[in-house]
């Protein structure tokens, strides 16, 4: 995002609020109070929702990077501190587990004529959240480098390995590949993606018992290890904030990154013309002869708190509908801030990777009540294996043991 654009957008939003402070959202009265993460796309949504504020509608918001840590306590209180929390597939789980958000079927039937079927997050037949943006990890390549070594754009991770080897052998780059392998939540996500690509199931069906200690788990681990061989030895410290600058400096030929980072890679800030023009987002890879991409799909959406009055719930729902309206997408440069699910969205080149990944049939990140615990076990145990201290089987056994300990504490397993 370049500086001038950000400023212009900021000014546009401010002016928008000033002139259209009393947008007609059809709300009689009520309180709206929003808890959301702190990044530009969500600022755009919440600012648009704020236009519904009037003499009878109070509006407050809290954008914070710590939203996950306070949401459960904030919405357990009665009345809830927030009438809506903006969540993603993983952060909605604690709210669902605690019964802190309400079904939205009535509100959708009454006001949600313009929502698309695919925006309705349904759990057990009840609509629990309204999604408005999508994200996924996928491959981004330097077309010019691949051309230089005479290779096509890879479609499988096996191709990626071959290409990386060719690039190294040709002496073009020392460490041509990177993925988001920082030894925290990021690394867990990479394993989730790779395991999904191998067609693996995380749990025994219908139970909370882990089921990752199998051939697919071993294969996924070995593929990750083969990939990081072509990555810089610092790979366990790599998150988006580290990989993006390396990409922009022209020291990478292929990387697995979030679709939401593509805008940064494709603008000229921090990069050279050569790198930008060669940068091409492609879909997620498949692996081991599978057909499902080795990636998981993510959505961001809003929920409505359970512990609030029906009046406030309706007011909040209407305000948030205004926030995710087509007008919001068309305002300023909001269109390019995310891959929106609304009709008015015009996908640019930065969105091609996410669209390709979704079209190829990637799985959504599981919304299981205990998935977060397994994810935690992945990144706690994987570094040992990736650093070559442990066998794949031992690592998978450790993952299951760590998960079982946590799941017992949370009452998912006895």
């Amino acid at each position, binding site marked *: 995002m370049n500086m001038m654009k950000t400023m212009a957008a900021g000014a546009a939003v401010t002016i928008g609020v000033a002139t259209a402070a009393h947008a007609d959202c059809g709300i009689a009265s009520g309180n709206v109070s929003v808890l959301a993460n702190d990044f530009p796309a969500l600022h755009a949504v919440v600012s648009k929702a704020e236009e519904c504020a009037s003499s009878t509608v109070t509006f407050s918001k809290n954008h914070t990077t710590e939203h996950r840590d306070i949401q459960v306590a904030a919405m357990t209180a009665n009345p809830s501190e927030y009438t809506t929390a903006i969540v993603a597939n993983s952060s909605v789980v604690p709210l669902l587990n605690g019964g802190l958000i309400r079904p939205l079927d009535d509100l959708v039937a009454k006001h949600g004529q313009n929502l698309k079927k695919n925006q309705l997050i349904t759990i057990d037949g009840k609509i629990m959240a309204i*999604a408005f943006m999508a994200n996924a990890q996928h491959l981004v390549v330097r077309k010019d480098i691949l051309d230089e070594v005479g290779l096509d754009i890879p479609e499988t991770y096996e191709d990626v390995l071959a290409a990386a080897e060719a690039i190294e052998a040709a002496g073009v780059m020392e460490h041509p590949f990177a993925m988001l392998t920082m030894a925290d939540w990021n690394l867990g996500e990479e394993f989730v993606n790779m395991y999904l690509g191998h067609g693996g199931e995380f749990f025994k069906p219908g139970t909370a018992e882990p089921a990752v200690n199998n051939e697919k788990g071993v294969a996924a681990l070995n593929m990750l290890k083969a990939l990081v061989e072509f990555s810089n030895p610092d790979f366990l410290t790599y998150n988006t904030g580290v990989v993006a600058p390396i990409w922009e400096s022209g020291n990478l030929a292929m990387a697995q990154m979030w679709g939401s980072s593509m805008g940064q890679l494709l603008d000229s800030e921090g990069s050279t013309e050569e790198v930008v023009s060669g940068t091409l987002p492609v879909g997620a890879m498949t692996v081991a002869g599978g057909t499902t991409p080795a990636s998981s799909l993510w*959505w961001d959406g809003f929920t409505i708190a359970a512990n609030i009055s029906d009046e406030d719930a309706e007011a909040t729902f209407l305000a948030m509908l205004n926030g995710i309206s087509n007008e919001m997408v068309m305002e300023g440069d909001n269109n390019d801030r995310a891959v929106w699910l609304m009709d008015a969205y015009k996908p640019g080149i930065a969105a091609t990777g996410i669209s390709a990944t*979704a079209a190829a049939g990637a799985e959504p990140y599981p919304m299981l009540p205990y998935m977060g615990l397994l994810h935690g076990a992945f990144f706690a145990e994987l570094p040992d294996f990736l650093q070559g201290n442990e066998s794949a089987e031992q690592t998978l056994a450790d993952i299951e*043991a760590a998960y079982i300990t946590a799941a017992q504490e949370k009452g998912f397993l006895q």
Partner: protein
Amino acid sequence: MKHKTFFWFILPSLAAMLLFIAMPLVSVTIQSLFVEHDQVLVEVENCTPFKCESSVAVDQEATAALREERPLGQFNGLGTYTNRSHLAFPEVREAWNASGSLHDFGARLMNLPFYKALAFTITYTAVVTPFVIVLGLAIALGVNALPQLVKGPTIFCSLLPMIVTPLIGSLILFWMVDADGILGAALQRIFDDDQLSLKASHSLTWIMLIVYGIWHSAPFSFIVFYAGLQTVPQETLEAAQIDGATRWQRVRYVVVPYMTPLVVFITLMQLMDNFRVFEPIVGFSASAKATSLSWIIFNDLRGGDIQLFGSAAATSLLTILGVVVLLMPVLIRTWQEFGRKVV
């Protein structure tokens, strides 16, 4: 001082600590003895923007009923303390039986998260604390010998490592020590090894964290020592000099004994702070090579989407226990001194 006067003087302070530390401490202790009630799971149909699939969810009504019945969850005794995430008694026993040698046993022990963290925590505490004390004293002696004019700015500059927000301080250092950063590149030059990376090697990561710890804490001990130096009586020093003591002997036999109470104070605070080392691990993204007890607590509470309160509570109490054991010698000393002061 009379009981009643004492009570009124200490009341505000005591009330704040009881309310905001002691009460949470009690609740944390209780929490660590319980695990959550069984979650009633049901199979459900989930739809997302991408597809519908059958999945599992928590049965709200059934679980709410259980929660109503036993709000604290199920009593687990010390079960949480002995499970794999903490002291891991069954796993340790198994490792002991399966291992052929002490070395092998150690390797198996390091596969358990708590012991892995404990190993780094203790190493860090044991190395950083003495270095901070020695370095602080050396800087204080050096600054004390400077001309009056430059003392002021020197003291400010010496305090900088302590007063820059660690959040950003470690981020900037993290980039400086990168293989492509100014310090990382300099080290590669010095050691003539263009593959050298502080972030990739296990032992270099430990050294980096320890050096950061010393750098960050040295100003604290420096300022305390510097102040203490002002109290060393001139006459004693001069008398020692007349007796023919070298400068080194004067430092060793006059200055250092005067500093002893300060050393105790700094040791107390440093042991406690170093045992809770946390910020550099996050700042340097070093959790793959080095974890600490405080990092485990952080990871349980903030690492993922589901918070493990019971587990964090147990680790917190084990940390406090560790601190108390570490401070025991100092505490005994304080007890003896206190006995002498009785009115």
